[in-house]
């Protein structure tokens, strides 16, 4: 028989076995091809990319993707090779030369990869179409999806070429394995007498201590100004924390877990139970060979989870912060009187029901204070010396911006924030409310402080009744806002202080009205004091969503890959030890109990990467949120919602993979005649 017929026969005989390989390869090719089609699609890419960012990101992602495809294919190829060494050993015993065996493997790989390529091209085209539809809908792109071809030949050629390289790589790796292994090693490669595992206390304790220290260091960020992160510098502390956690994870998995379980093993009263006597030694046995995979998956899960939640956080945060940055739907500073009537007529022109729209004019007075500088709140002089504001010409003068409590209430009501409006307390003439830009880092509050305001020649003392984060005017037009009583406001009004007038437009008709916004923007000649809530939101979404899409794509890919690796890894471990389960069954372990043992064995391998990923991600996003992000929204737990979502999604993916793996493992154990009483 020539090699070709043998390999064809082989594939036909072990169809279900090869199907797994075929589908997993088809899956990665689908993803790869869909991505290539997407990034080679000039129509879409030009639409979503304004500055070449998407193109460069696509290039980065495609490098990751190639690395991933190579890694994944090598891993599954190794897995299948290992499961087939016995069969190959028999060929060798029968007198086939190694080169013929190698040719057999190559043939098989070519067959399988061709099949996978065809499947991948078809499903990849479907996936690409789905992505195009989703992107156009999501970003409101003005594209006719039917103009984009279903099948992209250029991407297909690239994919096929790349796959050829992958096949060559796989063949080289197979060759190196085959030529290195002796004949006897081929015939019985599975059960090698392995070395005894040693349990050292020092690395075990070090693993625990380093992981703990890393997490404690991360928690230290919560101490605010005194934290090591601020005093010793963010990058230094970050590097130290990162190395502690990485080394700690490595030692924790390779030394601490076996050490801990070995102690459990010594504790006879706890150890001699039907499940533990099988589970604990089994885990220690497996970690000897599986520690590296487990460490790699834990670190990668941690990285992927952290990246995705930090990313989700940094996309979600600016959108959530819009309620403070631009509280009104549209707001601009009035410089000439006729701007108001002109704006009104523009609104009439572009709105379907103008009756619903509220126009509020608010006067804001800049009042300086005679109080000593260090006593004044940070907001008083915020943005007066900042280099960034200076260069953009937005430098503001120091001072309190005073508005009256009734116009504050009216604005809140117009913005639909009824509850916040009700909570605004009544003010006496010597009282005020200070609007904070962000909460003070040390957690202090200015409530109770008295500031002197210079109104004309008079010095008026006002006491801060409370501080609030509920601003009714955008930060572009007012930072360091003081809400004062109407009487005091009248007094300020009468004393010829610098004043600016803003117009706030709210209501259903103007919401999400891009045409109106661009008309106003054109009319105001691009004034930086024009603020549009929906416009800003749109802008944020379209700038970030392509980033989000691409990184999200990578992250999902990673979780699917790690799930598959765990699947393969556990399935091999369980089916290699099929005999063990059969013995247990003969000794009187019921199927139910064996299934429970398998479930728990597999669970450990899924839980370790997940839990490490979870912990690392929680601590990393804590640091990120507290050290690197503005604190416009205070310390609400709600801000961690995206992190929670990322974690939940990971949990669900792992859960599904765990169930699938347990199912496959149980099937591998139970369908065999040895334990099957049909």
């Amino acid at each position, binding site marked *: 028989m020539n090699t070709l017929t043998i390999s064809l026969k082989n594939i036909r005989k072990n169809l279900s076995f090869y199907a797994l390989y075929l589908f997993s390869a088809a899956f990665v090719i689908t993803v790869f091809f869909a991505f290539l089609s997407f990034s080679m699609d000039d129509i879409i890419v030009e639409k979503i990319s304004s500055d070449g960012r998407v193109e460069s990101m696509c290039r980065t992602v495609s490098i990751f993707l190639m690395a991933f495809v190579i890694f994944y294919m090598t891993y599954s190829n190794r897995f299948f090779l290992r499961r087939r060494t016995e069969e190959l050993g028999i060929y060798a015993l029968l007198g086939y030369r190694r080169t013929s065996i190698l040719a057999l493997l190559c043939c098989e790989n070519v067959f399988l990869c061709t099949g996978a390529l065809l499947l991948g091209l078809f499903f990849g085209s479907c996936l690409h179409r789905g992505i195009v539809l989703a992107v156009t809908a999501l970003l409101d792109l003005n594209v006719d999806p039917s103009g984009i071809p279903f099948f992209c030949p250029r991407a297909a050629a690239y994919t096929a070429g790349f796959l050829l390289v992958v096949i060559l790589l796989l063949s080289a790796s197979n060759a190196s394995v085959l030529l290195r292994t002796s004949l006897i090693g081929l015939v019985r490669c599975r*059960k090698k007498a392995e070395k005894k595992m040693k349990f050292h206390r020092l690395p075990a304790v070090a693993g625990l201590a380093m992981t703990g220290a890393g997490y404690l260091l991360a928690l230290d960020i919560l101490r605010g100004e005194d934290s090591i992160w601020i005093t010793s510098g963010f990058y230094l502390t970050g590097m130290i924390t990162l190395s502690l956690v990485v080394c700690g994870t490595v030692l924790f998995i390779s030394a601490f877990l076996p050490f801990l379980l070995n102690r459990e093993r010594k504790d006879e009263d706890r150890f*001699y139970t*039907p499940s533990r*006597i099988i589970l604990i*030694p089994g885990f*220690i046995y497996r970690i000897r060979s599986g520690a590296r995979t487990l460490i790699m998956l834990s670190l990668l899960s941690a990285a992927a989870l952290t990246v995705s939640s930090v990313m989700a956080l940094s996309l979600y945060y600016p959108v959530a912060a819009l309620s403070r940055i631009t509280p009104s739907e549209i707001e601009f500073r009035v410089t000439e009187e006729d701007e108001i009537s002109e704006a009104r007529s523009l609104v009439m022109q572009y709105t379907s029901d103008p009756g619903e729209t509220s126009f509020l004019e608010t006067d804001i007075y800049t009042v300086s204070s005679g109080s000593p500088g260090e006593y004044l709140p940070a907001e008083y002089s915020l943005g007066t010396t900042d280099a960034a504001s200076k260069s953009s010409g937005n430098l503001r003068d120091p001072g309190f911006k005073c508005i009256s409590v009734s116009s504050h209430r009216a604005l809140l009501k117009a913005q639909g924030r009824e509850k916040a409006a009700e909570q605004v307390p009544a003010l006496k003439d010597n009282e005020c409310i200070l609007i904070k830009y962000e909460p003070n880092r040390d957690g202090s509050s200015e409530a109770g402080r008295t500031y002197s305001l210079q109104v004309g020649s008079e010095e008026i003392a006002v006491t801060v009744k409370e501080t609030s984060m509920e601003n009714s005017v955008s930060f572009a037009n007012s930072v360091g806002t003081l809400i004062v009583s109407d009487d005091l406001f009248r007094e300020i009004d009468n004393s010829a202080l610098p004043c600016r007038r803003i117009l706030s437009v709210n209501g259903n008709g103007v919401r999400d009205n891009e045409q109106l916004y661009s008309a106003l923007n054109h009319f105001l000649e691009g004034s930086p004091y024009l603020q549009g809530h929906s416009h800003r939101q749109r802008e944020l979404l379209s700038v970030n969503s392509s980033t989000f899409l691409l990184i999200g794509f990578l992250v999902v890919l990673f979780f699917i890959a790690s799930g598959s690796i765990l699947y393969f890894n556990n399935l091999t471990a369980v089916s290699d030890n099929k005999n063990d389960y059969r*013995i247990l069954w003969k*000794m*009187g372990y019921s*199927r139910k109990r064996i299934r429970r043992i398998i479930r728990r064995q597999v669970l450990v391998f899924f839980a370790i990467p997940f839990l490490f990923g979870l912990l690392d991600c929680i601590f990393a996003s804590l640091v990120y949120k507290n050290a690197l992000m503005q604190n416009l929204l205070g310390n609400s737990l709600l801000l961690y919602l995206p992190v929670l979502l990322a974690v939940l999604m990971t949990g669900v993916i792992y859960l599904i993979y765990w169930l699938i793996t347990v199912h496959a493992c149980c099937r591998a154990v139970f369908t065999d005649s040895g334990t099957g009483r049909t």
Partner: protein
Amino acid sequence: MKPVLEARQLSKRYPGGPGPALDSVTFSVDRGEFVGIMGASGSGKTTLLNVLSTIDRPTSGKILISGTDLGTLNDSDGAGFRKDRLGFIFQEYFLLDSLTIRENISVPLALKKIPARKISAAVQRLAERFGIAGQLDKYPAELSGGQRQRASAARAIIKRPDILFADEPTGALDSASSTGLLNVLSEANRELQTTILMVTHDAYAASFADRILIFRDGHIVSELFRTGDRQDFYRDIASETARLDGLRTQPRQHV
């Protein structure tokens, strides 16, 4: 004496098999007996053992072990029954690689939820009797075949099963190790009154039993009882198997 095992009219047909692997087999085993089952390869010995030990179901027939009808057991009853009453030794040892010898021997008792203290004491006692006390903290891979098989016998005997099933336990051992194991088994049979049903195709191994059932083509063709000492019994078995071989080859010559 009431029999511990009774098999009546047992038949077993494998789907697609040419004929029945077991063909109306009827016999019984008394408590404390050491019964050997002999026969050529393919004569149905392993099938018989599987059927008797709840691992497989007969196509027809009835099996009673200590009064329990195996036909009435479902999967989890079967597991419970094996846990409480049966012990196994296999040709390939089938020790669990990840467990030490001590843990391997302890598994049946741990499964029966016996307190750890009692388990340790029982393991120690049995290991001394079986001559593997020094190997208890080693892994199966570090032991010789004979030591492994003795460990596997200890694992089967430790829970004091009603019947111990052994399928060619000496099949992979050299003669010295075989003798060691067989001595241990017959000692357990005499001193612990363990009932043993041992499959073998080797007359020497069979001579350790009290009674021999000889199988051919799925049924019992001959039964031998030990009357004198082991050497005499060995000669009886050897001549009987030679006679049966003659019977088997003669008709063929006419074909």
